[in-house]
């Protein structure tokens, strides 16, 4: 992996890394983009003209009422404003993407993939999460009530009640499933690191390799007992002793704090890496406020906002990394079912950037 690209993640704070450099757009591509934007602006202009015409021309209103009643609702001032506003927002976003050189095809592809995942997520949420299912029902009910009250019956307070239901439903959807962190959880996590800290206290340790769970087992971390990197195969790592047995020992296996994370029932569902990291680090342990993930080949970069770095001891930090990174490494090893090592971690403002590498 090119180190300059890794640096780029820090500088751009994990904006999406493109595998190809933005090339010079060809003339036809530019023309196509411009035509789409012009068409959108023309559509907005036409909608505004139709609205003006509908309000000043009684004949048009009568004709619409007789032949196309839906047109009357579509040409309501606030409907026109909502549609035009949304179109203009999308056009502005397209222009920004075009000017900044980002490939809209990739963005659209990501959106489509996101929608595909969203469908599965929605099905799962409705079936498994009571509160989320209720939130979806509330949002749907609110949408129906708002549309019916505004367009059909014309009762504004009822439409407002529908909008408030939508706000409540969407807010409930955006909140975490549960918050169980806090000072108590941090104290327990700190206690959990102490046994590893005591085990490694008298030794010189190198960067650990997190080994994925085998046959539903736990996650181990192989800690080399020297600073110099030695070529130890994965099988040798798995067979390493779990305690200090002699002076010529190359390394040992320890149970990292996140060694049982592969056994969380929710992880049997199809959750993305970012979703799992958020579940553990933000919603359960509450040791950071936000998680972002970028994957490029065998390199995985995880950015954690407001990460708590004062939990683990020095030896734990030197070998297994800070506690948020250690937990992230356990989850990455489980998701990819491959050994993973923490390449580096550093602070970038309020964020902790951890770079992991999957080992084949």
């Amino acid at each position, binding site marked *: 992996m090119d180190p300059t690209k890794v640096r780029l993640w820090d500088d751009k704070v994990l904006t999406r890394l493109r595998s190809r450099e933005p090339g010079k757009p060809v003339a036809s591509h530019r023309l196509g983009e411009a035509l789409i934007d012009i068409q959108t602006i023309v559509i907005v202009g036409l909608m505004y003209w139709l609205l003006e015409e509908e309000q000043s021309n009684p004949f048009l209103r009568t004709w619409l009422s007789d032949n196309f009643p839906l047109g009357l609702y579509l040409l309501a001032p606030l409907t026109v404003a909502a549609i035009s*506003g949304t179109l203009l927002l999308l056009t502005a976003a397209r222009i920004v993407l075009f000017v900044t050189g980002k490939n809209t095809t990739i963005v659209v592809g990501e959106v489509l993939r996101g929608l595909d995942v969203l469908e599965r997520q929605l099905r799962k949420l409705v079936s498994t999460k009571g509160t989320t299912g209720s939130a979806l029902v509330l949002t749907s009910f609110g949408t129906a009530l708002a549309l019916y009250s505004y367009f059909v019956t014309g009762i504004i*307070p009822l439409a*407002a009640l529908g909008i408030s239901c939508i706000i409540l439903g969407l807010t409930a959807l*955006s*909140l975490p499933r549960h*918050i169980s962190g806090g000072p108590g959880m941090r104290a327990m996590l700190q206690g959990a690191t102490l046994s590893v800290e005591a085990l490694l206290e008298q030794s010189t340790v190198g960067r650990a390799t997190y080994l994925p769970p085998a046959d539903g087992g736990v996650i181990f971390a192989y800690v080399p007992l020297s600073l110099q990197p030695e070529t130890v195969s994965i099988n040798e790592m798995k067979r390493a002793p779990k305690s200090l047995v002699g002076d010529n020992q190359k390394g040992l296996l320890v149970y990292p704090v996140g060694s049982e994370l592969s056994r969380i029932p929710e992880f049997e569902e199809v959750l993305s890496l970012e979703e799992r990291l958020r579940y553990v680090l933000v919603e359960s342990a509450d040791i950071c406020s936000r998680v972002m993930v970028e994957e490029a080949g065998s390199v995985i970069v995880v950015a954690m906002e407001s990460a708590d770095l004062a939990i683990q001891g020095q030896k734990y930090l030197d070998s297994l990394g800070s506690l948020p990174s250690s937990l992230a490494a356990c989850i990455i090893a489980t998701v990819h079912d491959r050994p993973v090592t923490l390449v580096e971690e550093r602070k970038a403002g309020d964020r902790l950037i951890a770079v992991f590498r999957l080992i084949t």
Partner: protein
Amino acid sequence: MLAILLSTSVVLLSTLRVQNIAVYLSLFTMCYFASSFVFRPKRRTIDFVGFGLLYYSALYMAITFKVL
């Protein structure tokens, strides 16, 4: 808390016979951001509800006051 604030807003404005949806939306936006400011909840995603409310209430208020 947000539910109480929103339903109180609807009852209050409907009692005052307000028929402009922009007024409702603006009050909802204020209630939403006030409760977010007080409770500071953690979120799974970006605050898309807040962004949406801010955008559409600003748009509707601009139309109401004939700015646009």
